[in-house]
């Protein structure tokens, strides 16, 4: 049997490393069945990590979930005895398995299946066939671009621009010195789709980039990876080394006239470097400050030479498109948005993780059918799409389809794929402030409107959540939003007001409650809430009083306790420990 431990960053954070070490120890001591313990990367079902898959040949026979190192012995015994009933209690349920079964995986096709450190496993799963097809059947650069054009592939980083258009533009630019760049900065907080692709299927990224480099005529390919992804960098470095050794990278690839080398450039912590011209500045060793467009990178990019920049997920679809044909990709999705999209579903969701589905599914299907709905069966309030450039979509719009145009019409954007679900306990004003805090900090400072506008908006939102909102604040925010959108040079500033605008559009009543009534309906903003104890529910167990850091709770055991509002610091400890749900937060 093959015992495969899921070791993406999430799996490791959940303890997969310890499970692996214990399994290694057991099988090293005695291995009568000649079984192998190996790894794969993020399977995408983060709510079940650590995960261990049991394979008989190529067939997955059992998926084990929430595996701890204490379970390792059980697994060892089950494998040796060939009796999988021994691991029934840690086997995935049919309901949880439906999370993956409802998906269509193209960009993530190998993630969670192959060992990312093995080029042979990638090749055994059809790897590098697309590249071979191009270089051995005489496909020209235009043939390749035509196929991508047929597929309708749009940039998956958030802007949704036609990939074929960009490639054609770079190919038509004058000059021999051209660059193919991958934007793996993935700065949107709450997004980890690109991390999963690089950690789980780095060769797929390499192959997609090589095809792009061939199409535009680039001899050097660079992957700009954010500093916060050390494991992704390690796995990609290993893949580049192996691909070079096998002749897929370097001079005269597969005996053709096409030569291309690849390197990694680590970011240094700047969200703005996800903007393509700021990324180029950073690649040149400078402060990541955006350039004016036009000229576009296709004409004047890295070292002012023609360059093509695409997101990781965009490249991750390319090999599949070449191998299966652009028409097959275009057969999925909607008229405007072809193919599939990967989402990182997180927040107050029962089943969180990576979801890849054809465009055209509704938000409701993703959140309820695949995600299982809201944790603890609370009320759904909003779903945040597109990170700091996006917006919050309310319950009334849950049947919106996943499509660039349809999502844009709501005021949010498709974005890179971060999908954060919120429930009745999330304050929408607080969320708007959270995003402004982020963009104000990350603004490069070049443009007055962005630099000062985001700061002023943050100040106003800060006052509102502290209970110091004033009449006219909402109108002032709207005016600032339009000014920042107009006056900003790059996407960061142009989209920074989006979270505020969608909050005003869909949750105006919540903003007004904060400003005029000094009340936080979600019970989150500290200055606007009071903690008290429901005298009917309290059984006087004193658990809350023991946890109170401010000594604000008093009472006699077995009688209802009370909170002194003057002493209360609203830390929420009492609510966390109370088993009678007797703490009221209003």
């Amino acid at each position, binding site marked *: 049997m093959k015992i495969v431990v899921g070791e993406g960053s999430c799996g490791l954070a*959940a303890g997969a490393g310890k499970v692996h070490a214990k399994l290694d120890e057991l099988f090293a001591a005695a291995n009568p069945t000649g079984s192998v313990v190996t790894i794969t990367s993020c399977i995408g079902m*983060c709510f079940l990590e650590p995960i261990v898959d049991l394979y008989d040949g190529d067939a997955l026979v059992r998926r084990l979930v929430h595996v701890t190192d204490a379970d390792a012995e059980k697994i060892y015994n089950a494998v040796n005895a060939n009796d999988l009933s021994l691991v029934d209690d840690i086997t995935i349920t049919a309901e949880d398995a439906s999370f993956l079964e409802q998906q269509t995986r193209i960009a993530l096709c190998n993630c969670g299946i192959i060992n990312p450190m093995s080029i042979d496993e990638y090749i055994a799963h059809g790897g590098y066939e697309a590249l071979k097809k191009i270089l051995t059947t005489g496909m020209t650069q235009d043939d390749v671009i035509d196929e991508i054009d047929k597929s309708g592939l749009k940039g998956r980083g958030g802007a949704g621009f036609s990939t074929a258009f960009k490639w054609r533009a770079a190919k038509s630019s004058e000059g021999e010195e051209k660059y193919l760049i991958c934007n793996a900065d993935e700065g949107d*907080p709450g997004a980890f789709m690109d991390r999963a692709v690089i950690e789980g299927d780095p060769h797929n990224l390499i192959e997609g980039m090589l095809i792009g480099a061939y199409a535009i005529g680039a001899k050097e390919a660079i992957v700009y990876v954010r500093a916060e992804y050390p494991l992704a960098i390690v796995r990609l470095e290993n893949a580049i080394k192996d691909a070079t050794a096998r002749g897929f990278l370097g001079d005269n690839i597969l005996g053709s006239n096409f030569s291309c080398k690849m390197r990694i450039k*680590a*970011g240094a912590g*700047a969200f703005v470097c996800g903007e393509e011209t700021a990324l180029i500045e950073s690649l040149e*060793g400078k402060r990541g400050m955006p350039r004016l467009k036009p000229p576009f990178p296709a004409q004047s990019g890295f070292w002012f030479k023609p360059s093509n920049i695409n997101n990781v997920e965009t490249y991750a679809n390319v090999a599949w498109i070449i191998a299966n044909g652009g028409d097959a990709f275009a057969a999925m999705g909607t008229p405007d948005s072809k193919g599939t999209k990967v989402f990182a579903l*997180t927040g107050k969701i029962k089943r*969180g993780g990576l979801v890849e589905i054809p465009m055209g599914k509704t938000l409701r299907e993703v959140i309820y059918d695949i995600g299982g709905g809201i944790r603890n069966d609370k009320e759904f309030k909003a779903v945040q799409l597109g990170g700091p450039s996006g917006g919050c979509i309310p319950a009334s719009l849950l049947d919106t389809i996943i499509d660039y145009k349809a999502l844009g019409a709501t005021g949010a954007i498709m974005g890179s794929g971060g999908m954060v679900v919120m429930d009745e306990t999330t304050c929408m004003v607080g969320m708007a402030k959270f995003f402004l805090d982020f963009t104000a900090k990350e603004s490069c400072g070049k443009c007055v409107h962005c630099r000062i506008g985001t700061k002023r908006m943050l100040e106003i939102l800060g006052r509102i959540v502290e209970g110091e909102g004033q009449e006219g604040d909402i109108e002032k925010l709207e005016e600032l939003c339009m000014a920042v959108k107009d006056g900003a040079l790059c996407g960061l500033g142009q989209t920074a007001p989006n979270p505020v605008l969608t909050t005003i559009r869909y949750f105006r009543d919540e903003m007004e409650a904060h400003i005029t009534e000094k009340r936080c309906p979600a019970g989150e903003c500290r200055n606007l809430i009071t903690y008290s104890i429901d005298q009917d529910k309290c059984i006087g167990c004193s658990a809350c009083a023991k946890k109170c850091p401010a000594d604000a709770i008093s009472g006699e055991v077995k009688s209802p306790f009370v909170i002194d509002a003057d002493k209360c610091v609203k830390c929420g400890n009492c609510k966390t420990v109370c088993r009678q749900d007797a703490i009221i937060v209003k």
Partner: protein
Amino acid sequence: MGCCCNDKASDLSLLEPVFEHYKGINGSLIAILQQAQEIYGYLPVDVIYHIAEETGVAPAKVMGVATFYTQFRLKPVGKYLIMLCQGTACHVNGSELIAAAIKDELGIVDGETTDDGLFSLKHVACLGCCSLSPVMMINGETYGSLTPDKTKTILRELKSKAGEES
């Protein structure tokens, strides 16, 4: 603005292999700064001046790059650098409570180091482990599904481990 000279001089010879590796490669300033930080643990001012001299980039420009990117530190950090994720999912699932727990246990907030030089806290942008929110990374090791109590336990274990090592 006060003078920011360090008390002791850095061993600049440690940078020689870095300059050798990047000689003639344009645009490698950020990579050089990253290597320098690996060597010294942070970017001392004399190192910045030395890098400026060796690369031919003006000291003000080097400083401009060092202060633009959040990865670079101009002050030394503790033995354990706690990176507390401030991503959206972590925020929604209570990263503020974890920050409060760290403050409670160690007495430090974002950007500070404990007096014994053991722990430093830095709020960072998304670490990409959103399904396990709230999350923190300490010296490359990720800890997820945090609660205030679990956080304190982790810190106490590291404290006693450091005590055993010294």
